[in-house]
């Protein structure tokens, strides 16, 4: 689990689970260009070329080693209405929550600031 898996096709985002809470988190651009984690999939940083993907992979490795997240990996996405959406249905559920419980998970705004709904 500690190793970052093989790179998927681009564009891609980096997701992981927060170590303490288990919530799904996404690598996002910080205010000062530093990468930070966000719980909002719409704010995920999208890597469109190999250089950007490498930056995300390095961030993942550092964060795994720093014991802040677990199960970090890149997920290939397409851009829909300006936001990244995973191409694979498994990862789409991970950015939403259980499909039988729209009141739970990110689709219900869990952990997403400012009341913004994914």
């Amino acid at each position: 689990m500690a190793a970052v898996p093989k790179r998927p096709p681009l564009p891609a985002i980096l997701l992981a689970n927060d170590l303490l809470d288990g919530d799904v988190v996404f690598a996002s651009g910080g205010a000062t260009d530093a990468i930070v984690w966000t719980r909002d999939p719409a704010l995920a940083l999208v890597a469109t070329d190999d250089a950007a993907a490498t930056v995300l992979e390095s961030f993942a490795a550092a964060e795994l080693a720093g014991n802040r997240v677990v199960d970090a990996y890149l997920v290939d996405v397409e851009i829909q209405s300006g936001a990244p959406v995973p191409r694979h249905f498994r990862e789409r559920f991970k950015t939403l929550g259980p499909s039988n419980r729209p009141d739970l998970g990110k689709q219900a705004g869990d952990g997403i600031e400012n009341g913004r709904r994914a």
Partner: protein
Amino acid sequence: MYRYDEFDERFVRERVGQFRDQVARRLDGSLTEDEFKPLRLKNGVYLQLHAYMLRIAIPYGTLSSRQLRQLALIGERYDRGYGHFTTRQNLQFNWPKLRDIPAILDLLADVEMHGIQTSGNCIRNVTADHFAGVAQDEIEDPRPTAELIRQWSSLHPEFSYLPRKFKIAVTGAEHDRAVIKAHDIGLRLRRHPDTGAVGYEISVGGGLGRTPMIGKVVRDHLPKGDLLAYLEAIMRVYNLEGRRDNKYKARVKILVHEIGAEEFTRRVEEEFARLDGPSVNADPAEVERIAAYFAPPAYETLPETSRTLDAMKAANPAFARWAEVNTAPHKAPGYTALTISLKPLGQAPGDATSDQMRLVADIADEFSHSEIRVTHAQNLVLPYVRQRDLFAIWQRLGEAGLASANVGLITDIIACPGLDYCALATARSIPIAQAIQQRFADAAREAEIGALNIKISGCINACGHHHVGHIGILGLEKRGIESYQITLGGDATENAAIGEILGPGLPAEEVPDAIERIVGVYLAQRVEGESFIDTVRRIGLAPFKSAFQEAAHAVA
């Protein structure tokens, strides 16, 4: 019910302390994830898609009202107000935070519960007939055996690092409600045909998953006193000879299959003969001490059938239907074993809210000697209900949406959490179950169809028991979409059978139509009083296959 002694109590408390320390060391970086993962798994803590998951052992599916209330409290305080009852008679919380889990384990320890051995390559929670101790067709209560095995297998030093996980189920009845033939070891209490002495029929090598197998009988009749020595012999042969080079071939079923049941039996018998039985087998006084915990409650002397119940049924057809479908014959006159369906329309199979858990606990206190059972079919049972109380219970359950009259019928679907929660799943299970429930929601039609078990798994690991469903549904990924493979003719009872695949996989939206077609063949072909599975056995798969494939072509 069994109560912890001082050793059990101390052991569970110490385990919580150890886990609290392990979490602290994980958070301060002293333990890496690779080091921590096996430790958390030993306490039932998994990482799922959206969050951590905590699996709590409910030994042989028996719960006190106090324990159920504690689960309700944990669900409310640390989770999202609900829990999920599983096919191993356990309970899973889907949203606990790692930081809270030590506190949750403290609350569990307060009511003699934990998550130990609900994961990993060890002997898992022992399951049993959910009507243990009350079923009319029972030869002997399986719970003392299950409890003895729980104690023997807990932290057994020789069997803590097996080639793979190991599941044991026990039944004491003629009719198998514990799916013993799909377990690594299945035990059936039976009377010796000549002597009448009660002993165990022992099956080994059953299992579902990617290589489904029906267990083979290795001993027709083992004297009860030899149980632990014989189990130890089986476990030792498996532990030494089970494959460790390939996790997909590591279960005991593969060993039994590869060397043959006869050779496996020979090796077990050889090991059994070599073992010092008296030093392994339980002291009869200890066996008696355990059995005393499962003495029946003080039953009232009641007539065989309740006139109050008959009057209420005559006055209220909906109640009558529920009372017919959800009750099972009881040993004690005037009593019944009541199944509370956790399959109401629109709810995920096996889910119960904290409020529902509390209500069931209250009803158990008032009407069922404070005891509840969890079934492998993801329902709850009140084992000691006076027939005359059924109407009052029905009314109270109805207010909480728990009075579905569908036990054993087409909408009483077993479904694993699937891709809505599970990190291993390849497709969703819950929405498929819900779509089928919706399609067959009409109560009269459901009654007309009669006994029919649909079982759904969201991956090949088969937690949803799809191989032994009369109709089984397996969710897979096919070319980037969810695809569902349908099997027919599986059976989870004493007539255990693995279902056969009907045809190509279907997209989710076509599954209810396919089920409809299969049911249509049954309704057209059945003879008077014949159940679905009996019709399948009589006419074979061919008519179902052609109806299924017509449907598949029609949509292709």
